[in-house]
């Protein structure tokens, strides 16, 4: 018997998701194109994938935060190495994978409650991106997240804008992430390490029509 590809993907139906640059069978480029098309026509394989949805949300934030900045920086330094963009995109793919299952306690013997490592990394990314003047590059959970009470260290690669006080902004980021982790997980956080990977020269200008509240 011959099995044909699914209608919405060039990937064969049996394509495994362990390919390093795929999320549930889709590349970050495909997801970016889907976003650019306004998510039309609807692709159920993307819309029903938690990993793809998290990656799309990250891409949307990235586009919003960096749109004007990328243009300006490109104008200032046309030969500038843009590998940092590729690094962020690779981080989005890696962080959106479901990863390990992190337990959530419940007294009932039939309860098996979990939050995926990917969901927590997605939370860290969105929370970090919400801190002004920060773009998160990558998040990592080090430690045995599957064992309740085991110490876990969070590592976040961040990108900031020139002129920011890096230690102060890192402290703000750390506190914000810790609050989110306490709200959404039962992880025992031993520490949150923030590494600033890149400093952007230009802050993005508000879009025409944007108004401050």
């Amino acid at each position: 018997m011959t099995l044909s590809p699914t209608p919405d993907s060039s990937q064969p139906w049996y394509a495994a998701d362990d390919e390093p640059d795929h999320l549930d069978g889709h590349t970050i480029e495909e997801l970016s194109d889907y976003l650019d098309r306004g998510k039309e026509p609807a692709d159920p394989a993307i819309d029903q994938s938690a990993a793809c949805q998290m990656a799309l949300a990250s891409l949307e934030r990235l586009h919003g935060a960096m749109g004007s900045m990328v243009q300006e920086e490109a104008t200032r330094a046309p030969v500038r190495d843009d590998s940092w963009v590729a690094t962020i995109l690779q981080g989005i793919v890696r962080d959106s994978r479901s990863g390990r299952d992190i337990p959530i306690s419940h007294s009932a013997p039939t309860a098996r409650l979990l939050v995926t490592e990917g969901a927590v990394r997605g939370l860290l990314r969105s929370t970090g991106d919400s801190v002004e003047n920060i773009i998160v590059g990558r998040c990592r959970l080090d430690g045995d997240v599957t064992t309740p009470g085991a110490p876990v260290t969070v590592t976040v690669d961040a990108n900031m804008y020139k002129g920011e006080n890096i230690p102060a902004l890192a402290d703000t980021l750390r506190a914000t992430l810790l609050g989110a982790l306490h709200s959404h997980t039962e992880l025992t956080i031993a520490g949150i390490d923030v590494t600033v990977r890149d400093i952007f020269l230009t802050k993005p200008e508000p879009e025409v029509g944007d108004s401050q509240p």
Partner: protein
Amino acid sequence: MTDPAELAGQLESVVRSVPGVTAVYPASPVLVTVVAAVVSAVVSTVTSTVSAVSAVVGTGGDAPTERAATPTLVAVTTGKDGLKVAASIGVASADSSTEVCRNVYDAIAASAGLADVAVIDSITVTVASID
């Protein structure tokens, strides 16, 4: 006992009704779900090919003999230890994932659809995204 597919549909509604739940994802990996849909289509047309394709599906999840044909997002399967329910959800970042996850479990466990189930093996609730 209620038909597993019907029960899965009922439970999906229960899960969606819990405050803080923003999405319900396929409890099985997306590709397994796609394959399962392919298998269902094959079953309805070419019975002789089912065993070979089911063997492939079995590599991605429970043993084929335990997997009920439930095209809905919540998975309901029966095994020797009783009924298994699995739901995968998205949670609003403004809420607490731990609380919402427990509330979803409680809502499933208390649902009318499970009232006449003799033995429940497990109810798995997975938070797959926080948005």
